């Protein structure tokens, strides 16, 4: 009981304790704020990447694509764990306004709007056809004309709040799209001056996926149109990918494993058929593997951040160690007194570790409370800083971020609090043990000769 009383009194009566408490609170505050923001950004980024693809992607990065995709799609659709399947053409194109003579290179996606929306979040990214993706390629000016959907950043700009400029109704802009059709062998399908396929498409919608790289470089065309432009109709119909959405409750890794088995069987059955060599390049990947290049950078940053938090944790341990070393140096008399009245080494260790645990609990509580308060107001604070000083953490005209993420993860808060208490105990352990081992006569400095 006396250990509890003394630990509590040491905590609130020693001014130096407040230093350690402030150090713990500050470290916890930093970790809570940065982890919440970073986790929010990474989580949001991953979700946007997932929305951009199906749960599982079967296909190839080759611009030639692969054959017999329709057969495989039919088989996949029948699997009990599959919700929807859609083929996709992926290539590159030059686009320009008719007659201007100027064009830019873009990423071309050929999709079946309705099925692609069932498999991915495509429908939700549209501005004019949100909720009715089947009409995504109906041109605004005339629904009989072939339409295109273009990445929001490629089409227009954003204001400093990250909002896009959209006209109330889709305009009648026409773009000429030029592709280099390839044969199944990978050679140019045409020769001479007529080596390209060009067709005019009319604006139908903008797609805002929230992925700056995608929205700044992509144009969607109807699947058949893209297939024809890319020369993927001859001599056998080809596609780049098949995106698969699993039924709710299906584990993505398990689902992908089953699709791999399904593909291996399909591959064996098609060996020896015309253009079957294209099937050898096909891989089956989960959405994470498919978007690896995009996600990897962010995950590396997150890993780096975790390492830095490890260093912050070590700094906390060191600060607590130094503070406890100082406190215990000032408390040698108390240790001597306690041992002279019968306290054991264990009692002394428990007393100071109790003190450390109290420090960790109070320090992390203050840090967590401060973190929650700050995070709840982080967007308001950033808004105020922007209005007052023109400062923005992320320039919304550049970064595809609406507001700074601030959703608290209770598990993370519990882990950070636990780690802070453990750091305090670790920092206090060595000074406590060395204090406990001291002989009462020595620490009381009673060796009067």
């Amino acid at each position: 009981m006396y250990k509890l009383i003394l630990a509590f009194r040491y905590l609130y009566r020693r001014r130096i304790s407040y230093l350690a408490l402030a150090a713990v609170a500050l470290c916890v505050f930093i970790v809570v704020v940065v982890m919440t923001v970073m986790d929010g950004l990474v989580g949001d980024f991953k979700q946007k990447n997932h929305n951009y693809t199906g749960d599982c992607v079967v296909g190839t990065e080759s611009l030639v694509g692969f054959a017999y995709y329709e057969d495989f799609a039919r088989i996949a659709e029948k699997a009990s764990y599959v919700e929807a399947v859609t083929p996709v053409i992926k290539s590159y194109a030059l686009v320009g306004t008719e007659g201007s003579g100027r064009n830019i290179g873009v990423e071309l996606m050929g999709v079946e709007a309705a099925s692609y929306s069932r498999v991915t979040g495509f429908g939700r990214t549209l501005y004019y056809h949100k909720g009715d993706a089947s009409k995504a390629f109906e041109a605004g000016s005339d629904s009989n004309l072939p339409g295109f959907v273009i990445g929001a950043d490629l089409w227009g700009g954003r204001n400093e709040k990250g909002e896009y400029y959209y006209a109330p109704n889709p305009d009648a802009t026409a773009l000429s799209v030029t592709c280099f059709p390839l044969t199944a062998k990978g050679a140019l399908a045409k020769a001479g001056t007529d080596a390209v396929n060009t067709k005019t498409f009319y604006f139908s919608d903008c797609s805002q996926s929230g992925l700056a790289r995608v929205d700044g470089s992509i144009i969607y065309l109807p699947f058949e149109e893209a297939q024809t432009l890319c020369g993927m109709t001859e001599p056998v119909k080809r596609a780049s990918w098949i995106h698969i959405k699993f039924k709710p409750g299906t584990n993505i890794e398990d689902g992908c494993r089953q699709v791999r088995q399904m593909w291996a069987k399909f591959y064996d059955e098609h060996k020896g058929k015309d253009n079957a060599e294209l099937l050898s390049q096909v891989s089956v990947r989960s959405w994470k593997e498919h978007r690896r290049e995009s996600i990897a950078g962010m995950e590396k940053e997150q890993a780096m951040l975790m390492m830095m938090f490890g260093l912050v944790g070590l700094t906390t341990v060191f600060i607590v160690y130094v503070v406890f070393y100082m406190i215990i140096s000032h408390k040698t008399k108390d240790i001597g007194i306690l041992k002279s009245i019968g306290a054991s080494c264990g009692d002394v260790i428990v007393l100071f570790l109790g003190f450390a645990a109290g420090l960790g609990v109070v320090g992390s509580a203050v840090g967590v409370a401060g973190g929650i308060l700050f995070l709840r107001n982080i967007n308001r604070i950033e808004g105020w800083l922007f209005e007052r000083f023109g400062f923005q953490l992320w320039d919304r005209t550049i970064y595809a971020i609406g507001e700074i993420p601030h959703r608290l993860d209770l598990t993370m808060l519990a882990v950070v609090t636990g780690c802070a208490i453990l750091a305090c105990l670790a920092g206090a352990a060595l000074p406590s043990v060395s204090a406990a081992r001291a002989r009462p006569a020595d620490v009381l400095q009673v060796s009067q000769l």
Partner: protein
Amino acid sequence: MSKDGFIIEAQGIHKMYRMGAAQVQVLKGADIAVKKGEFVAIVGASGSGKSTLLHILGALDRPDKGVVRFEGRDLSGMGGGELNEYRNKMIGFVFQFYHLLDELNVLENVILPAMVPSGIIGWMSKRVGVKKRGRELLKAVGLEERATHKPYQLSGGERQRAAIARALVNEPRLLLADEPTGNLDSATGNGILELLERLNRAGQTIVMVTHDERVAKRAGRTITLADGRVK
């Protein structure tokens, strides 16, 4: 109690300290024996080893050589737990510089030795009785009104009386006092000595270390230490 009636006896106590490269032999075979109910003063010049001997008797330090027996039991044969119990229950120690804990008030300091062996539940069951005894002791040493004061709010004499009350809370069989008046003026020191005499008359065995011959005369018996041995 030993068969000779001694509550504590020390035989052939040797103790050496290292001071840098030098070694100082403080005790060179000191012998002492105290009977129950005695009030013994150990006197000697500064550096004669009297405080060291008292610490060895109180198990605050270990001798390099020699035997200390408390009620016939050799202290060197006791384990850590037994020595803690010995320091907690068998003896009470009064220091020259009082050594009260600043974080606790006077009453809490006095009852601290009673709290040490108790867990939270054990303490809850006996705290009323212990607090009552603490207040009685404070009344006995004239500090009843100072129970809730902090040690730094007391005078030197009051602190020493609080320290004596703390040493008595577990009703120890032996009270060891190391220069209990050494840090006090003569009037206050006299009050402390009167308190010790009163305790001794009530049956308390006391061993007191002092360098002051006048203080030593207040004890029933005086032992003189010189050159690490009893003269």
